[in-house]
């Protein structure tokens, strides 16, 4: 009995840990999907929605795994579409809107560099499925990181106007970066079990990598003392409700629908 209790709390923490990773890809994928047909050029439009598709592909792997672990009778679609706002554990950064192209690129850039080092470390997890997902994902993320970093450099070191827009985006989004390195209770349990990545240890490397690109882009690295947090514990910004309304519409309107 006690071992069974232990198992069920383990699987609950594991599912929360998976949400903590997968929800970032899900919500960012949804944000990028909003750009379909609205990219600044045809080529960039395709590139950004390709990234969105990569992210959704990752989400499917995570949620199939989470559904399999769960003791409830749920599918990957239930996990993606039928949770309430407080049950999504993505960071605030990925839910920030596509205010302009520089914002979309800035958001992508700040997330990709985190995503890349997270996936690098997740390959050392004791959980074989997570290792397999990380191995597949790292190639995609490596490309995302190149794409967004290139654009940060192009805009930052481009015209006066593009420089100013890129700087504004980085300045505004910087306050969401610290949360990437927070851990929840479930995260800590998974770190103890050798399954989860201790993101606290990745912080220094992240800011070093990001700052290098910003400097090459002739942009200022923001110097902030106060940061936003909450998403990892389900406390989201005002944008989240709108994202979910659109994303969940089909499943809520036609429950159980399939393509």
């Amino acid at each position, binding site marked *: 009995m006690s071992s069974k209790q232990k198992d069920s709390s383990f699987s609950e923490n594991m599912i929360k840990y998976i949400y903590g990773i997968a929800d970032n890809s899900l919500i960012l994928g949804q944000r990028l999907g909003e750009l379909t047909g609205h990219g600044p050029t045809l080529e960039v439009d395709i590139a950004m929605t390709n990234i969105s598709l990569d992210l959704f592909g990752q989400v499917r792997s995570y949620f199939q795994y989470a559904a399999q672990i769960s003791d409830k009778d749920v599918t990957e679609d239930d996990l993606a579409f039928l949770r309430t706002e407080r049950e999504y554990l993505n960071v605030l950064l990925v839910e920030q809107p596509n205010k302009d192209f520089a914002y979309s690129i800035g958001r992508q850039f700040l997330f990709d560099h985190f995503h890349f080092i997270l996936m690098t470390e997740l390959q050392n997890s004791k959980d074989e499925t997570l290792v397999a997902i990380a191995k597949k994902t790292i190639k995609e993320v490596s490309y995302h990181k190149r794409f967004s970093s*290139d654009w940060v450099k192009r805009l930052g070191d481009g015209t006066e106007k593009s420089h100013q827009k890129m700087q504004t985006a980085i300045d505004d989004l910087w306050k969401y970066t610290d949360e990437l390195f927070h851990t929840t209770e479930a995260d800590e349990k998974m770190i103890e079990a050798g399954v989860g990545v201790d993101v606290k240890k990745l912080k220094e490397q992240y800011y070093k990598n990001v700052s290098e690109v910003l400097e090459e882009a*002739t942009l200022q690295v923001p110097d902030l003392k106060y940061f936003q947090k909450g998403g990892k514990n389900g406390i989201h910004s005002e944008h989240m409700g709108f994202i979910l309304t659109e994303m969940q519409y089909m499943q809520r309107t036609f429950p159980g629908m399939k393509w």
Partner: protein
Amino acid sequence: MSDNKENKKKPATHSSKGTTGKKNWPLWEIFVRSKNGLEHRHFGSLHAADADMALENARDVYTRRNEGVSIWVVESKNITASNPEHNGEMFEPASDKVYRHPTFYDLPDDVKHM
């Protein structure tokens, strides 16, 4: 800040040297090798500010579904094309001389792509 900017090489956000004017990126022709052993084939064209961006755009536009193992990009203005009006003098003399084509040999079935 602006001093700093001038010392560095600027990746273009707009087309260089007036290929198609300031607002449009130049056009690039994309060649993709589908698999090792085959030649690069023309896949299409796209817009990009420079060669690096053309490669990335080509990757996203043409090879996302595993279509290729290698990409070449060439700015379209660097391609010299034959004039269709001269098709007569350029190509027709060849078509009535069957002996110019090695059609009198039996090719073994194993030889492909000939």
